[in-house]
């Protein structure tokens, strides 16, 4: 059917919008599915009746989970690493980005530092030598194993450095005139001005600390020391390989809603901070990268 100009545009608009709505829904479906699974009854989950809404709504999986002390231990380790690791990242990122944002004339060694930093980002010794260094420092099975090797998030340092560079130079000059030293200028002027960028990198570092599982896997040997993601990895991801080979295994069926509940609780903190995260980070990732 031939359509006239204006009407035609309206139809394509609707089709395009519907396509994008479908794409958007596709992003949410797995998350909705796991949430409904976690609130569903055992037999409904087992028979595969659960899709977008919980079937036989129950809190059973959550009640069962809250009795699990190992889950709480792991949750505690994760909270601890986010707070401690996030604080260390916060302080070191600011302390490194500020002097690196200085012009070469003002801080001659700046370029040398920069080359070392970029070199460590581009060239690594590989997993085994890194593991041996952490081990020989006797960090294994301490919280420091999770926060010290990741203490300097290089990408964040570069991001913040580029933000500092974009601040008007006159402000620093006038602070200098007033007799403020570098520490005072940093704390009272540069940091408040760079707050949007600092919020971005801090959220990035919180997310990466919360999501990390591998360091917990190889550096923590005692069960009560492993962070939440590692705990989930060990209990949910690894054993379910065998569960898919033995679909008749009845024990795994109850495990299914229970695992779903653990997954939901683990992703909850990310979903909670997501509104803040998304407000800053679009700005953040375009902040320091492409420059003409």
């Amino acid at each position: 059917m031939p359509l006239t100009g204006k009407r035609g545009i309206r139809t394509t608009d609707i089709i395009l919008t519907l396509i994008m709505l479908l794409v958007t829904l596709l992003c949410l479906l797995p998350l909705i599915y796991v949430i409904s699974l976690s609130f569903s009854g055992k037999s409904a989950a087992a028979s595969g009746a659960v899709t977008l809404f919980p079937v036989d709504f129950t809190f059973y999986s959550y009640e069962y989970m809250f009795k699990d002390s190992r889950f709480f231990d792991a949750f505690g380790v994760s909270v601890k690493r986010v707070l401690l690791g996030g604080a260390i990242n916060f302080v070191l990122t600011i302390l490194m980005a500020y002097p690196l944002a200085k012009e070469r004339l003002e801080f001659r060694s700046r370029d040398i530092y920069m080359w070392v930093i970029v070199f460590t980002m581009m060239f690594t010794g590989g997993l085994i030598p890194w593991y041996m260094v952490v081990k020989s420092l006797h960090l294994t099975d301490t919280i420091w194993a999770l926060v010290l090797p990741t203490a300097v998030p290089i990408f964040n340092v570069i991001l913040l450095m580029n933000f500092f560079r974009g601040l008007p130079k006159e402000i620093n000059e006038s602070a200098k005139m007033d007799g403020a030293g570098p520490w005072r200028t940093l704390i009272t002027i540069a940091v408040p001005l760079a707050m949007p960028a600092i919020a971005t990198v801090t959220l990035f570092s919180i997310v990466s600390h919360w999501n990390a599982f591998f360091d917990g896997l190889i550096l923590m040997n005692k069960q009560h020391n492993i962070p939440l993601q590692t705990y989930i990895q060990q209990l949910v991801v690894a054993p379910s390989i065998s569960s898919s080979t033995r679909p008749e295994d009845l024990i795994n069926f109850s495990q299914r809603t229970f695992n779903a509940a653990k997954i939901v609780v683990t992703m909850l903190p990310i979903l909670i901070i997501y509104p803040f995260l998304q407000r800053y980070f679009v700005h953040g990732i375009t902040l320091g990268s492409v420059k003409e």
Partner: protein
Amino acid sequence: MRDSKNTFHYHLMLAPGMILLIIFGIVPLFGMAIAFQDYIPVKGIFGSKWVGLENFKYMFELDDSKIIFFNTIFISLMKMLMNVLIPVTTALLLHEIIFSRLKKWMQTIIYLPHFLSWVILAGILNDMLSQNGIVNQVVTAITGEPIFFLGSNNWFPAVVILSDVWKEFGFNTIIFLAALTAINPSLYEAASIDGAGRIRKIWSVTLPGILPTIILVSTLNIGNILNAGFDQIYNLYNPLVYESGDIIDTYVYRIGLVQYQYGLATAVGALKSVVGFILIFLSYRLAAKFAGYRIF
């Protein structure tokens, strides 16, 4: 006088971070010596026997190494291709949407998966793709029998590539969308006056407008070709799919920290580091030359 005093404080600010970077970034480089040793942990680096290039020779003789190098490059190339194609398409579609509130919502939702860990997503995928999972219910309804997605060498790479696209396409869309909004609106007006329709405008104005960004992203991707995604594959794979899914990083982890063949694992890792470094260096140089890109 004053300036040199400031310089001292700048060094002081950098010191704690630099010390940690040197400990965890530079010191391990010396540990790469293990690659040339028959390393025995109790003897340490200074006590273990030097074997020259023995570990590297052994690596190239192993059938495993051909497989892991192929898998690594194949999976990451496919991911790179898809992670440019799909986000560009998504950006074009989003850009055409006239309901601006809805558009904002869509944008916000599609990059949510980027912030969830592979542990979480693999947990969900494992359930969805299992024999009696939600996906196989649909498959069974259509073909009559379920597909063993995570246990079949035919399906595993596809699952890896597609789930990575699912997780990252929204995030990757942002940069193309930013490039789209930077296109001068008068170009569209001029095209309209010349009688260009929607498709023609996309082809002649939009695509040329974001081409530099596409080239820049693709160039920077070259540096990551040896990173096929450890977190993802480690959480999705199992011995049944080593043949199609084992990559350099998972292999190094297994032979090094599970089987304790330190010398061999370090050699494989070292080779990856050196080649990776050359690739990153080249990609940065290319990006600087053709797109004026600088990281600092």
